[in-house]
């Protein structure tokens, strides 16, 4: 095996994937950076050049900042709920002694394999005025007439949590499953209660998995626009909705490009911070 051949080999292996990503992702993204300095004229055509107008609008207008902060807030709440709802099942499956761990895990992840639009819209059939929940409540006489539950921030978060929970469970499960059982036994034999063992040993060791799941949930939540469109009320727009509106409804591609870049940079920064604190490798480990 010649030295030069060995040095080139990883690049040969990487080249198809890198070429795909470079050609279909990097170059197009550079393209929209250029685009963000163009202008949209009144007829809808574009004016090439170097104009800062879009950037002035994006940075100067509190509207975009507020929606961005709102988006980050919704993404954070979603992530928090995913963690709260996802940790316990992952823990129970990982710690249980049943032979069917994989099956249990697979079952929890199953809804993940079902059409996103249909799944999102099915919440209307559950929470709507003539949905399942209201039918039951009215039928049992708990409420005199249907309760209005849909089309607010809570339903948007609900839809997002349902969509993203599997990502969290998967990540937490993997890190819990990798914990050496001898550690837990040792902790117990030293006289720690199960709660203490959990707090002192299990939880710290599972934190990387929790963080990886959290990152995925956060980033994916911050980039959605269909969930708020279907389950939100008039005010529940997220930043990706603004991108969608600028690009599709207003045909203002330069502005849409600028907004895209903002979202990209903000999410990129979140990833960078995460990379510093935990390392991206953890995400990779969690998919095992």
């Amino acid at each position, binding site marked *: 095996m010649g030295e030069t051949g060995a040095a080139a080999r990883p690049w040969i292996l990487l080249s198809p994937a890198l070429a795909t990503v470079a050609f279909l992702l990097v170059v197009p993204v550079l393209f929209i950076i250029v685009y963000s300095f163009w202008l*949209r004229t*009144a*007829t*809808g*055509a574009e004016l090439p050049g170097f104009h800062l107008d879009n950037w002035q609008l994006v940075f100067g207008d509190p*509207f975009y900042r507020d*929606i961005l902060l709102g988006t980050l807030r919704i993404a954070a709440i979603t992530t928090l709920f995913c963690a709260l709802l996802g940790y316990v099942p992952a823990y129970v499956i990982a710690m249980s002694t049943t032979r069917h761990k994989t099956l249990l895990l697979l079952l929890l992840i199953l809804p993940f394999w079902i059409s996103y639009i249909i799944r999102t819209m099915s919440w*209307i059939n559950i929470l*709507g*005025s*003539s*949905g399942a929940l209201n039918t039951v409540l009215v039928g049992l006489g708990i409420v005199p007439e249907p309760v*209005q539950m*849909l*089309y607010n921030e809570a339903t948007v978060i609900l839809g997002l949590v349902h969509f993203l929970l599997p990502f969290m469970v998967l990540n937490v499960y993997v890190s819990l499953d990798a914990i050496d059982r001898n550690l837990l036994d040792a902790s117990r034999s030293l006289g720690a209660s199960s709660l203490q063992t959990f707090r002192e040993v299990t939880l710290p060791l599972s934190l990387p998995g929790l963080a990886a799941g959290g990152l995925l949930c956060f980033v994916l939540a911050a980039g959605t626009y269909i969930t708020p*469109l279907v389950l939100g*009320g*008039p*005010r529940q*727009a997220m930043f990706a909705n*603004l991108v969608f*509106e600028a*690009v*599709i*409804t*207003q*045909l*203002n591609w330069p502005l849409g490009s600028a907004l895209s870049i903002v979202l990209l940079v903000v999410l990129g920064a979140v990833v960078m911070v995460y990379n510093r604190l935990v390392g991206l490798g953890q995400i990779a480990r969690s998919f095992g």
Partner: protein
Amino acid sequence: MDNTRRYERLLDRYRHGDVSRRAMLGLIGASAAAYGVMGGPFRNFARAATPEQVRFDGWGGVVSEAFRQHAFDPYTKKTGIAVVDGTFGGADEYIARVRASQPGEFNLAHLSGVFDYARYHGLELTSELNEDNIPNLANVIPALQDVFRGITGGKLSAVPYDYGTTGIAYNRKHISDDEMKEKGAKILIDAAYKGKIGGWSDWKTRIWYGALQSDQDPNNIGDMDAVWDAIRANRDLVLKYWGSGAELMSLLAEEEIYVTEGWSGRIKALQDQGHDIGYLDPPGGLGWQECIFVLKGSPMEACEELLNFMLEPEVAIAVAEGQNYPPALDPAKVELSDKVKALPAFDPSGTLEGLNFFNAEYWNGNEEEWARVYSRVERGY
């Protein structure tokens, strides 16, 4: 021209009921569907002198089935040109795709009225139809053609195809016809129905109704601030701004909302299903028309011939019955079916004088600012 004659004979037999629809389909037996799946990269069909196919984009569903059966298949049979049909989720999404495409990649589209026609003209995407190739154009209501001619200097880049209104739909269990008539457009800013009001998320419709609610002419708004205030008032009372016909219908049918703007055809469909929903075009209510548009760079003769097929009375009537919007055919020249005559917004006189349309020049001049401001007003600003 032998093919043409054969087709006409066939069509004639079909009209006289000698051939059933299914048999007609079988006779024609063209399958264009397989064409689209593998388009092949770097293919440029439109620049060819005799195209192998033309591309039509529409709303899908029943409309597309009606077109396929009554217009596309006979057309392919006659000319040998396949019709590839695609669907779009909305006019905005489609125009975005067209703009990002090569000239000639898209050919014909079922677009909404004057406003979009003018937008395409602004983007220099209009073509020029040779009307001699479309004899059926003579049956089309002149008023609908005139607005298009006004934009493109007397020529046409599209044929009008159907029309409808965006009026107010209301649940008659909760709102009486009298109350509705009395309040008109202002019922949508009536605080008594807070949380039970819906609306279309389209900024043009919102501004049009905002103008009506602030007692102004939507095509000549003097006090824009009053319109924005009306929109804000509406926004604070609205449960949900819907974005599709499906959403509109389910919100009303499941009594999530009691009153909303609505598309005449969709409300008619609800009524046909037995829901007690009323429909009113308030004074100054909004009319619109849809057209079959031919984009610049398309093979013109092939498209013109297809347009002529699509304007055949039975095609237009079948489409109208499918989507519940009256065809653009002049009732004085063409015998329309009873079902068509019973459709909401149908004008037996064929003059459409009772309807108000967007003044394209006025709205396009304000589009950029209004669309952007609306986007933030909707979100609470």
